[in-house]
């Protein structure tokens, strides 16, 4: 009997034995946990996770993915450059140095052009792009699918339908944005309701979204047909998504929602850690997966609807930006900060290109994002889902 058990014991068993008593002691007194475990066998523990940076101050500690941090910094720089470019180029080219001077001190001859004409539009591009990027990152994480985005699961179409109805019905311009917001949120609610059996499982949620999205698109086309030509044209322009003639009010519309969503986003950053796991594993770790998906999806829906309401259906930012950020950072899900910065940069650059590429003809930003997003989508499809 003892020979058998001895034969089975590995040389490390002696260490294990020490670890056992240390562990059981540790269970009784959590304060002694570190000391208990350090007794005897353990090698030098890894102070940090490979690829991550840890900041510690007493009991408070913060964990950051190193590459994601670098990518965020790089994207921030790209965004800054894009903003300066957007403020520089136009009918009158303002040198970057002058742009900076106008922003910081003012009192130059370019004040009017930069501050009154270009800054509002650029700011709108930044906040809208941020909202789209975040919304996309959230929706893609919840759906566990890089092809998912608020554009294709019904939110954008809901906003579009409401706006089209408002415009075709001759409603006052001020009513369009709130209607679009309401439409987007209603569509999101419908998708959640449809996909909510079995706890909002990723695939069912996405399938519901696709179904709702197609149904809504058909309805949009019907409304366009029933409207008169001019209203239909206006609705169509809105549907493509454009920043033309929009500025401070629209920026405020999106900005307010972003600021209000900050606590939710802080929660989301942690809650996203379990979305890629299956439900059972997530529950085993003490999370509530269905509730998390609902919360994350809701935040994404609100951000997407808010941004769409103010700039129209600027498609593909929510699809492309999170994936670009993810590939650059090498993480398994889109990093929130990276996605936001990439989205902002994308919309700023798209708007700039739309303004200048075929000047004096103005292309709506939505056309440019489709022109970038379309080929990128093709690339995603052809390459397959493996990163």
């Amino acid at each position, binding site marked *: 009997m003892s020979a058998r058990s001895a034969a089975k014991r590995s040389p490390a068993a002696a260490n294990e034995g020490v670890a056992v008593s240390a562990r059981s002691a540790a269970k009784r007194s959590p304060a002694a946990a570190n000391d208990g475990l350090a007794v005897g066998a353990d090698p030098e523990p890894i102070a940090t996770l490979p690829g991550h940076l840890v900041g510690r101050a007493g009991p408070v500690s913060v964990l950051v993915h190193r590459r994601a941090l670098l990518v965020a910094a790089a994207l921030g720089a790209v965004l800054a450059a894009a903003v300066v470019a957007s403020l520089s180029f136009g009918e009158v080219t303002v040198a970057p140095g002058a742009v900076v001077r106008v922003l910081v001190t003012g009192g130059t001859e370019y004040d009017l052009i930069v501050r009154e004409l270009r800054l509002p539009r650029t700011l709108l591009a930044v906040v809208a792009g941020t909202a789209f990027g975040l919304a996309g990152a959230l929706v893609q994480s919840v759906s566990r699918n890089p092809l998912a985005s608020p554009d294709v699961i019904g939110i954008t179409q809901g906003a579009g339908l409401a706006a089209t109805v408002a415009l075709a019905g001759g409603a006052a311009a001020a009513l369009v944005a709130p209607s679009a917001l309401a439409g987007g949120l209603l569509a999101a609610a419908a998708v959640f309701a449809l996909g909510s059996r079995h706890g909002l499982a990723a695939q069912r949620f996405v399938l519901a979204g696709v179904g709702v999205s*197609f149904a809504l698109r058909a309805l949009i086309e019907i409304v366009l047909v029933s409207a008169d030509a001019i209203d239909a044209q206006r609705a169509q322009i809105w549907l493509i998504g454009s920043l033309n003639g929009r500025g401070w009010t629209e920026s405020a519309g999106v900005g307010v929602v972003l600021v209000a969503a900050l606590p939710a986003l802080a929660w989301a950053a942690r809650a996203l850690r379990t979305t890629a796991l299956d439900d059972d594993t997530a529950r085993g770790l003490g999370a509530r997966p269905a509730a998390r998906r609902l919360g994350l999806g809701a935040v994404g829906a609100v951000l997407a609807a808010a941004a769409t309401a103010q700039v129209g259906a600027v498609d593909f930012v929510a699809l492309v930006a999170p994936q670009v950020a993810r590939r650059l950072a090498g993480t398994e899900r889109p990093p929130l900060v990276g996605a936001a910065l990439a989205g902002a940069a994308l919309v700023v650059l798209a708007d700039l290109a739309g303004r200048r590429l075929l000047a004096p003809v103005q292309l709506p930003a939505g056309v440019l994002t489709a022109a970038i997003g379309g080929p990128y989508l093709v690339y995603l499809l052809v390459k397959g889902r493996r990163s």
Partner: protein
Amino acid sequence: MASTARRALVLGAGLVALLVAVLASLAVGSKAIPPLDVLRALTASDGSEASTIVRSLRVPRTVVGIEVGAALALGGVVMQALTRNPLADPRILGVSAGASLGVVTAIAAFGITTLAGYVWFGVAGAAVAGVLVYTVASRTRTGASPVTLALAGAALDASLGAIVYALLAVDARTFDEFRFWVVGSLAGRTPATALQVLPVLLVGAVLALAGARGLDALALGEDVARGLGHRVGRLRVGTGAAAVLLTGGAVAVAGPIAFVGLAVPHLVRALVGADHRWVLAVSAVIGPILVLAADVAGRVVTPPAEVPTGVVTALVGAPLLILLVRRAQRVVAA
């Protein structure tokens, strides 16, 4: 599993219903023409107003309706079989959008205005979109999940749609025509139109029927199909080409009429089972019935204005799509 007798009965009943639909399509409209006058107008041209309406307006419209209905239904059957996805439909997989883009490019960029000219652009556009979707479908050994395929199609539809609308946003007049074309309508189609697209559709239909047996085997999985002796690669290309020709042609003629390709296969499979020879044959009958019925309904709902056929199918098809999504959700694993 329906017996052969039952299937024959369904086919027979379908043909009778089709005749009724054709008659209705010829008789009903802003000016209702009694059936006997219709028959008289068909047999001899006597210069009366009724005869003119029937022969020059409604007959071509009806013929196009039959062609388009059959083509979309057959295309839908093939797509659902190829992708093993109950939600596949030329619209949902983005193939219609590809065809639309092709047609719009031909008209707007190359100024081609004849159907015979731009139908090939439509087919080419459908082919490009079809290839993309096929690539997604063959990504993994077991084929893409219905969800990924639906997402890819939705994104493709959105992107191509955006490009189309972008092309048109700068050209108000073309946009005004386009917004009616894009819902799909049979109004104003000429006999020439009906004839010009026929060869394309016939080739597509023949290819589809030829692949019927192979599609049956493919439903069991690629490996099983190969084990049964089918050349899966060739089968895919052949039936894929069929889907593209059928969709491209139908969209070029009548615009992307929604949901016919989605609904008819489900309805037919419920009636005659899953044998693709029967499904294809009966779909070619039921599809036209649906389209003609929608067209007739569009004529009588708000006289004298007409509701385009595509609007009617969309209004009926959208809730149906939601219903099918719910059913598909049960099949898709959590």
